[in-house]
């Protein structure tokens, strides 16, 4: 029995992929009166940062066959996109196959469709309320929590899911920060205006050389940019492209794996060497680790995890988070024609005049300074995950009351295995849960759809199981 037979109320803050898919599972599986409040500050639900892009050239970095929202129906997205293509015709320039990298904005439509269908299929007493507003504070109490919205209204919920996702990058550290107030500087790479008002012949500097940088580079190309694209990052490493490979058999067991990062890396390197000699691709070796990455991470002592972040992360990122072959081809051509120039180093200073800004870069491992003159600088360093740095009222509120705390590595929030958040004293919350990117400290591998969809399903089951809340 639910208390007083009133419907249980679950508020989900954040209507990106994570929040929407939790809502979909709740809608489909609830067998008792349930009121789901999905709170999203953006004008559209289901898209979030990743699938809210307006550019058709922004492709998924995971092939269609692996992007289903449902772990137990792996072809769900593929079927949806193939059916849509048939009925709408010009959805995609080519026929969608399992290995196609579909535009991200189409994936956003898919997430919306999943949510709509789940809502339509839900029992009469299971309802979804879409609240287009911003949550700014949460006050948990003995019976649930009160959520305040930026328009001053409040709402009650028995359980709350924080599906806040990806936070914007922070401005790169530099002594004189005054350039960061210039209109030539864009601090948020996914701003709808990051690339407006750029003369096609102007030189541009992108800070960071990961997937976010590639997004900006191909979008510049799409809008006909002909000027130089400078890229600066500490190592100057770009993500590798995907390639279809023969799967590599599992070579490491969780129990048998070393618990020290140096030995682990050595072991993987040797395996890659052997695999290549036997005609495999290195990608297949890394992919064979995916099913156990979270466990390998969890059994590393904290100091070893730190060591990984310090020394291995950058190499892991470019090998593991690969880019679609289509995008890789465009970028290879830009590099070949020298329209794109990659600088390994650190920005030392900005010197702006009426026409442009001179950016001084100290080259890696040297004292040499190189100056590039550009019309715009865009921070494309990728998402920030240190919750201590966020000025967002909701995070401030939760932190100042001690309802949440960062994980020991400060790359996400401290969570228990079921996604319940830990408070400042380490007490597991009965009310607040999270999934997706904030679970990074615990799981490491948690930011992409293949992981989040599992978490969304399990979290929904957990919330439905513990329905006798009082």
């Amino acid at each position: 029995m639910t208390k007083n037979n009133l419907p249980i109320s679950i508020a989900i803050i954040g209507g990106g992929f994570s929040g929407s898919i939790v809502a979909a599972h709740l809608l489909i599986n609830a067998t008792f009166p349930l009121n789901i409040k999905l709170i999203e500050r953006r004008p559209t639900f289901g898209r979030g940062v990743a699938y809210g892009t307006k550019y058709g050239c922004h492709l998924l970095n995971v092939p269609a066959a692996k992007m289903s929202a449902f772990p137990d129906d792996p072809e769900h997205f593929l079927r949806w996109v193939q059916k849509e293509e048939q009925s709408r015709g010009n959805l995609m320039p080519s026929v969608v196959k399992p290995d196609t990298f579909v535009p991200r904005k189409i994936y956003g439509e898919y997430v919306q469709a999943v949510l709509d269908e789940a809502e339509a299929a839900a029992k009469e007493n299971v309802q979804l309320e879409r609240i287009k507003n911003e949550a700014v504070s949460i006050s948990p109490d003995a019976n649930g929590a009160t959520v305040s919205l930026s328009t001053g209204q409040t709402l009650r919920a028995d359980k709350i899911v924080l599906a806040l996702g990806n936070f914007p990058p922070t401005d790169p550290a530099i002594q004189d920060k005054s350039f960061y107030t210039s209109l030539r500087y864009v601090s948020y790479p996914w701003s709808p205006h990051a690339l407006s008002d750029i003369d096609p012949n102007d030189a541009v500097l992108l800070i960071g050389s990961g997937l976010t940088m590639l997004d900006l580079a191909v979008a510049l190309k799409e809008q006909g940019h002909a000027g130089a694209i400078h890229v600066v990052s500490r190592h100057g490493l770009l993500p590798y492209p995907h390639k279809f490979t023969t799967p590599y058999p599992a070579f490491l067991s969780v129990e048998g794996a070393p618990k020290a990062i140096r030995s682990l890396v050595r072991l993987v390197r040797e395996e890659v060497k052997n695999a290549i000699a036997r005609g495999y691709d290195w990608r297949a070796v890394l992919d064979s680790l995916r099913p156990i990455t979270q466990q390998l991470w969890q059994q590393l002592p904290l100091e070893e995890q730190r060591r990984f972040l310090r020394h291995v992360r950058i190499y892991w990122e470019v090998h593991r988070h690969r880019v679609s072959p289509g995008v890789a081809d465009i970028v290879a051509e830009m590099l070949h024609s020298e329209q794109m120039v990659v600088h390994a180093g650190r920005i030392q200073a900005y010197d702006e005049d009426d026409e442009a800004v001179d950016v001084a870069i100290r080259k890696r491992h040297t004292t040499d300074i190189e100056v590039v003159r550009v019309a715009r600088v865009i921070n494309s360093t990728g998402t920030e995950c240190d919750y201590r740095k966020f000025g967002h009222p909701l995070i401030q509120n939760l932190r100042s009351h001690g309802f949440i705390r960062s994980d020991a590595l400060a790359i996400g929030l401290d969570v228990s295995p079921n996604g319940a958040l830990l408070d400042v004293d380490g007490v597991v919350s009965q009310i607040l849960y999270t999934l997706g990117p904030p679970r990074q400290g615990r799981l490491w591998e948690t930011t992409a759809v293949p992981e989040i969809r599992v978490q969304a399903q399990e979290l929904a089951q957990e919330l439905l199981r513990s329905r006798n809340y009082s």
Partner: protein
Amino acid sequence: MSVNLLTKRLTLDDFILEMMRIAPQDLNLEQLQDLVAQLDLNDTLLRQHITFSDKTYARKLLCRTSRFDMLVLSWHPGQFTTIHDHAGALNVTRVRSGTLTARLFEVYDKRSSTEQLVRVGSEEQLVRGELASVDRDRIHQLANTSDEKLVTLHVYAHPLSSINVYCPNSGQVDRVALQYTLEQ
């Protein structure tokens, strides 16, 4: 339409002179909009007033004359104002960078001058160069509901000495005195 924000237009000096040409009682919202729309947004003085605070949006007085106040507000994602009116002053806000959410409220239950229930009447998202305008006695709220930092330029004519703040839950209306120093 794309606005070239780097083109120099009305300097602050020009703006002050233009404002002096119109008698305060004759100034209307359209005139104020036209002038604010022409201001140079890359102005060095303006840039010096951009500063962000973790606690709430940062409000810096850029210039005060007998005719108007000009302020620069810097907002982290999620920061927002109270629901308020400007006690008779005209207000035009221009977005310098980021996306501004501007909400106009309407009174749906006026119990007395100090107890009025309000609700959102309209909401719009404004981007670089665009204006949010609030006529004398309109009730509004501004917020940064986007993922990126926001910087806005605000002109109030006449200069503000107080505003009325509306509580959406209790309906209570409070007059709040405003005081700025240049350091604020």
